[in-house]
């Protein structure tokens, strides 16, 4: 067993960065490193814009509660998925092989993480980067939305191509820096806008019900909460991995949301980088934008490429470069054609926030309820890859629960928080379906894949490797 110290590591990592095999002991990282990588993902302009949206809809006290409740939901979901990743030492998509089957993991991963979080989110963040650069220097050709998207996208691709080492390095350098620069932006913006008294007495421009705000907060980072195993598979401690996620969400995210929201209450707009420019921290404003997007987007690309390693004939690094170039081209296209329109981002965020949690619901139900409470399997044996084991190619139980949960939560049920509805429905359906089918002795499985020393690597890669 790969996770056991007394056994020799028996896997061959043909795809790179342990994409389709368990992470070995010597590659594990501390809880601090996991915390920094997570916070690096969170530290981005989009998170501050999320806070700015709250500032348009709520008073300070309402905003505080919306942020706390939304982040608590994300915190709990992310804790559970983080713990799962640290226990299995496998990526999100490899973990999904159990409830969805290997092809199911790829297809669902492709729809929800490979395209959405991978190319899709990468493209959106790269485009946002272009907008930010253009706002900072509107008359410079290199800073036009399209051109900045191109060089920004290429820059973000570099650390993702290096892998977890590159991502962790950039996060260590950036995280405290970014928190401080963001705090300067908040405090100077509030001061210029009329001070703390104005923040406390300000009325929101477009008031909204409590649940809408919570849904927006949950939707902002729920995709991240779902794919935490991509990072926590490198964690030394299972509980540490969960806490790294929970703490960054409950402290750092609440701080970002409230800070940006207060800026809006004081000034009427989310002038995050403008506030830094106004107080003479010009280079800081640029670095806030560049490093913030970079630490987030390299993770998006890294995670998206991991999904493709399940079926792709090329290495993880080649996948990162290919997907990065496609995402950059998409961002540049939108930048050149749509300019600084904000609409695609909002539509994208809304869909993402509603549908993705259904996958998290299925995964959590399978790992904690079906295999944990029902089958009574020990934590480190629930998702364990063993040579010779046969994993389903398609497991319809996961498909059914996720489709129903996602569709009902996103389009049918109109009350409550859509993202939470999707997650809870798929969670409940999976628990009922998996346990009932097991009791009836029925398996909704198509095909079996035998695990070899190459882990979950595609068969043609294995053949190619064995020939050479």
């Amino acid at each position: 067993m790969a996770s056991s110290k007394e056994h020799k590591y028996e896997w061959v990592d043909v795809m790179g960065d342990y994409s389709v095999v368990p992470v070995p002991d010597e590659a594990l990282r501390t809880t601090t490193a996991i915390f920094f990588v997570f916070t690096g993902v969170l530290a981005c302009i989009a998170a501050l814009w999320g806070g700015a949206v709250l500032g348009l809809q709520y008073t300070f006290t309402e905003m505080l509660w919306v942020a706390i409740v939304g982040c608590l939901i994300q915190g709990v979901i992310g804790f559970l998925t983080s713990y799962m990743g640290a226990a299995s030492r496998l990526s999100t998509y490899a973990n999904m092989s159990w409830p969805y089957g290997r092809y199911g993991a790829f297809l669902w991963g492709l729809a929800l993480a490979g395209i959405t979080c991978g190319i899709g989110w990468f493209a959106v963040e790269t485009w946002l980067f272009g907008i930010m650069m253009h706002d900072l220097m509107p008359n410079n050709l290199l800073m036009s939305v399209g051109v900045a998207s191109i060089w920004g996208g290429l820059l973000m691709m570099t650390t993702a191509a290096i892998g977890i080492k590159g991502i962790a390095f950039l996060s260590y350098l950036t995280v405290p820096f970014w928190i401080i620069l963001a705090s300067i932006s908040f405090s100077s913006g509030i001061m210029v806008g009329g001070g703390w008294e104005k923040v406390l007495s300000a009325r929101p421009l477009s008031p909204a019900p409590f649940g809408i705000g919570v849904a927006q907060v949950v939707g902002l980072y729920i995709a991240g909460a779902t794919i935490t195993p991509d990072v926590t598979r490198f964690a030394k401690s299972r509980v540490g991995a969960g806490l790294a996620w929970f703490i960054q969400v409950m402290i750092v995210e609440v701080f970002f949301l409230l800070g940006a929201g207060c800026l809006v209450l004081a000034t009427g707009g989310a002038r995050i980088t403008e506030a830094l420019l106004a107080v003479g921290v010009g280079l800081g404003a640029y670095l806030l934008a560049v490093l913030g997007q970079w630490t987030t987007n390299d993770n998006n690309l890294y995670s998206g490429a991991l999904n493709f390693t399940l079926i792709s004939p090329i290495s993880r690094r080649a996948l990162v470069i290919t997907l990065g170039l496609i995402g950059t081209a998409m961002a540049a296209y939108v930048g050149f054609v749509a300019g600084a329109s904000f609409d695609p981002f909002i539509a994208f965020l809304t869909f993402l926030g509603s549908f993705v949690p259904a996958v998290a619901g299925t995964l959590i139900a399978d790992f904690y309820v079906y295999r944990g409470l029902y089958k009574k399997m020990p934590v480190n044996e629930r998702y364990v890859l063993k040579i010779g084991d046969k994993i389903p190619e398609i497991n319809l139980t996961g498909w059914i629960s996720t489709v129903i949960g996602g569709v009902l939560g996103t389009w049918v049920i109109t009350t409550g928080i859509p993202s939470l509805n999707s997650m809870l429905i798929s969670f409940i359906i999976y628990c009922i379906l998996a346990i009932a089918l097991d009791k009836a002795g029925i398996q909704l499985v198509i095909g079996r894949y035998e695990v070899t020393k190459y882990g979950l690597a595609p068969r043609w890669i294995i053949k190619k490797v064995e020939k050479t």
Partner: protein
Amino acid sequence: MEDVRRHTYAYLVFSMVTSLIGTAFGISIVGESPYIAFPWLLTTIMPLITSVAGVFRVKRVSEPYGLGVVSIQHVWWVVSVGFAGVMFFPADFFVKIGGMMSITMAIISAIWLIWGFYLIYVVHEKTKAPVAP
């Protein structure tokens, strides 16, 4: 490995003392401008906490690799804060209120940054701990 431990101690104690001085500076401007004092204090309290914790953790580790991991982790916090300090302490907004205190903190931040980078390199070379453990 004692030279690595001593070097890390020296850096963390320096950061502890200078961040304490910086905190005193920050407190002195709270009355004049709490909006400037807030990021100022965040910049000084963060390395203060991580340096104090680092001194205790470095003391407890005996094997070289573990010592390298703990040292590099704590040094990174101070380096990153130093990076931010270099960016904003010299800005007019801070110098107008902080005067020489702001200039002093900019110099201290630069030392945190440069010395920290060098120390990470040295610890990595001697202990083989990852640069981002």
